């Protein structure tokens, strides 16, 4: 499962973080604004194609795993128990599109690059650091969970079979939560001691370049968003 930044070289990696963020925004809006069923299907096809072309097709298996429970419950509720298969399909496509878009953003956006981009635009440092911290949450929790699991395996925990795995999960929960809370305390102290809350505007060390191609892509995405919303209200 890929749930955080991974280095790569596709054009989505080179894109300005705001361009990728605009792509996510465009997906979120258009997937609901464009008429069903063609709209959500088209958005999903488009974003999947973009993942392939942009060198981040590695997000697709993770997206499938994350979307599977939604599809399962949609089929149960709207197809097996209900009588609205089209509704299930539309909602499933909307959810899948959003998951793929968010995963692309997570995988191609280094938290530091996003912070530098925001600071370069004179956006509030607090918001930049909060967003960057949120991007790091899942990878950090996964690393901590792996360390706790290794420690518990060394101390005799057995995770064979379904029962063993459930037991392992229970043994993991409490130390994972307590450890994460403790780390949040320590990290907030560390950040505060390093001038994060001085009220001064930080200097971005490596502000990403915002090329004319990036600006054009964002403009087109904004036009796409406005057009989709217009279609929604005019039809």
């Amino acid at each position: 499962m890929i749930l955080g930044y991974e280095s790569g070289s596709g054009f989505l990696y080179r894109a300005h973080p705001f361009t990728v963020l605009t792509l996510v925004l465009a997906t979120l809006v258009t997937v609901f604004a464009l008429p069903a069923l063609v709209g959500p299907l088209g958005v999903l096809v488009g974003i999947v194609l973009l993942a392939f072309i942009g060198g981040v097709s590695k997000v697709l298996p993770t997206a499938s795993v994350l979307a599977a429970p939604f599809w399962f419950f949609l089929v149960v509720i709207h197809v097996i128990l209900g009588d609205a298969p089209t509704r299930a399909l539309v909602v499933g496509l909307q959810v899948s599109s959003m998951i793929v878009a968010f995963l692309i953003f997570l995988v191609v956006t280094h938290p530091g690059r996003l912070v530098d981009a925001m600071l370069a635009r004179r956006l509030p440092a607090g918001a930049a650091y909060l967003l960057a911290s949120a991007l790091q949450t899942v990878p950090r929790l996964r690393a901590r969970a792996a360390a706790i699991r290794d420690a518990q395996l060394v101390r005799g925990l057995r995770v064979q079979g379904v029962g063993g795995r459930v037991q392992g999960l229970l043994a993991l929960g409490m130390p994972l939560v307590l450890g994460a809370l403790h780390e949040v305390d320590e990290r907030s102290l560390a950040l505060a001691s390093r001038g994060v809350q001085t009220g001064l505007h930080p200097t971005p060390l490596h502000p990403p370049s915002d090329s004319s191609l990036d600006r054009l892509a964002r403009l087109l995405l904004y036009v796409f968003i406005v057009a989709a919303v217009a279609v929604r209200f005019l039809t």
Partner: protein
Amino acid sequence: MITFESLSFRYPSADRDAIDGLSFEAAPGVTLLVGPEGAGTSTVLLVAAGLAPAETGGQASGQVRVLDHDPTTNAGRRELAGRIGYLQPSPWTQLSGMTFSAVDEVSFAAANLGWERQRILDAAQRALTSVDAKHLADRHPSSLSGGELQRVMLAAALATDPEVLLLDNPTSELDSVGTRRFLDVLASLPDSVTVLIASTDVDRAADAADRVILMDGGTVVAQGDASILASEDAFARDCLTTPALIGARSGALHPFPLTLTELVERVPSR
């Protein structure tokens, strides 16, 4: 200069004060804080750094002055921004997670102070060089070992040329060579810098200390030179240097031998 006067501090939900009527003065030079578990040495650093109670919560009373400012107030913290370097015991949790390299990590505090970019990079390179970690500059922080990272974080604390350094168990991840280098860094600091170290590694830290403050139960039990680490007060609190401990267990009379040489001279041969 750091001054504590009748300072008390209690963490939220705690049933006793972590610092209880503490009074002492730390002049420029190296002051070592030692004490048994729960003595309050780390909390003293948190208060001096302006992190307690502002970040930790809790209640403080009494007076604390750092470079003539009160770090428990917003105005004091603003005045002290960039003038205090603070190092936590675990370097891992101090990583910002927002940087691409060790030199960026070292630059983090200076960047947050809004320094001009070239000034930041010069300061970061200087700080890395001072802790003998220039070769780590381009490494990703997560690829560093514990000892390497602790040196990088020390460089981060030094990067803004602080007038006060607050170091909480700064050698916890260092081997003996790394600790020696760390002590050399302390020795190379300008005389005007006030360094306050809370350490459980009394043997090594004692070498660098101009003054030693022995704490227990949140208050000062004894203060003076390094000989305190060979006193009965320190013996009662398990804070003796290793030679003093060996001397005490070998039947040497108080004051116990502070150094290895004294130990050899004083312990009766059998």
